[in-house]
């Protein structure tokens, strides 16, 4: 109990991942869907860092860096698209995205 092992971190990562999944499933607002996506990416990063530490291998940390880089560019492009959508339709709910008429 007092000795923190790899399983503790993996369980924590899984808990955070399921919180993010619940967020993805119950949200309708696209901005809050993005927040839930960030939670998913962060929980995976914890698992990567923990495995990297307990196996003495740097590969996990490298992957965490690239996950962070991908998350940053995803946010930049996604927010740009979201702003364009909000200017055109006045809402960022998923319901208004149901049809993809150009």
């Amino acid at each position, binding site marked *: 109990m007092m000795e923190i092992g790899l399983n503790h971190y993996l369980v924590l990562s899984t808990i955070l991942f399921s919180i993010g999944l619940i967020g993805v499933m119950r949200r309708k607002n696209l901005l809050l869907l993005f927040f839930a996506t960030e939670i998913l990416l962060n929980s995976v990063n914890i698992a990567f860092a923990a495995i990297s530490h307990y196996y003495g291998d740097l590969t996990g940390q490298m992957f965490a860096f690239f996950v962070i880089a991908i*998350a940053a560019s995803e946010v930049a492009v996604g927010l740009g698209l979201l702003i364009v959508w909000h200017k055109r339709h006045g809402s960022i709910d998923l319901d208004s995205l149901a049809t993809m008429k150009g």
Partner: protein
Amino acid sequence: MFEAIAFYLFAFLTTLMFFITVTTSQALYALTALAAGMIFISAFFFILGADFLGAIQIVVYSGAVMALYAFGMMFFDTTRAVKEKNGNKYIVAGMSIVAAILVVIIFAAPMVSDNITALYPMTEGVGNTQDVGMVLFTKYLIPFELAAVMLLVAMIAGIVLAGKKMDLSLTLYSTAEIKDMKIDQDKKVLS
């Protein structure tokens, strides 16, 4: 002992913050809770000895990404409460549990076979940042450059998408002009 205390404290705080993020109906509360959760997550990286990753987590997530969200939220109407999907609760709960079990299996699979060998082992007597630099600029140089190009593409995409019609300010026009603009916009959307 202290590691255990720190782990449980930050695990509780992170879970709480992310729980607030996915359950609150105010977008601003969600943003603030998410930023706090990101900072608490960086504590895990410091506990695990990944100092550079922890610093990057604070700089990129709490600094850049959260600032981007905060600026982006100025474009949206975030004052009203967010509507939520009210789907079948049992389906949502069941799918969450299945997905969580799947993640555990994914992580447990290589440990059961117990054949993980360190591809790039940590060097003794070298700080984490130096170690990361040595591996990143030798073994992972091409992914690193590709990530740089990807960030450049994302930056240009952000400027092109969000910067359109920035010079048109809704506060400087009269109501009639805004109505005309709305009609024009609707025509453009429908055509």
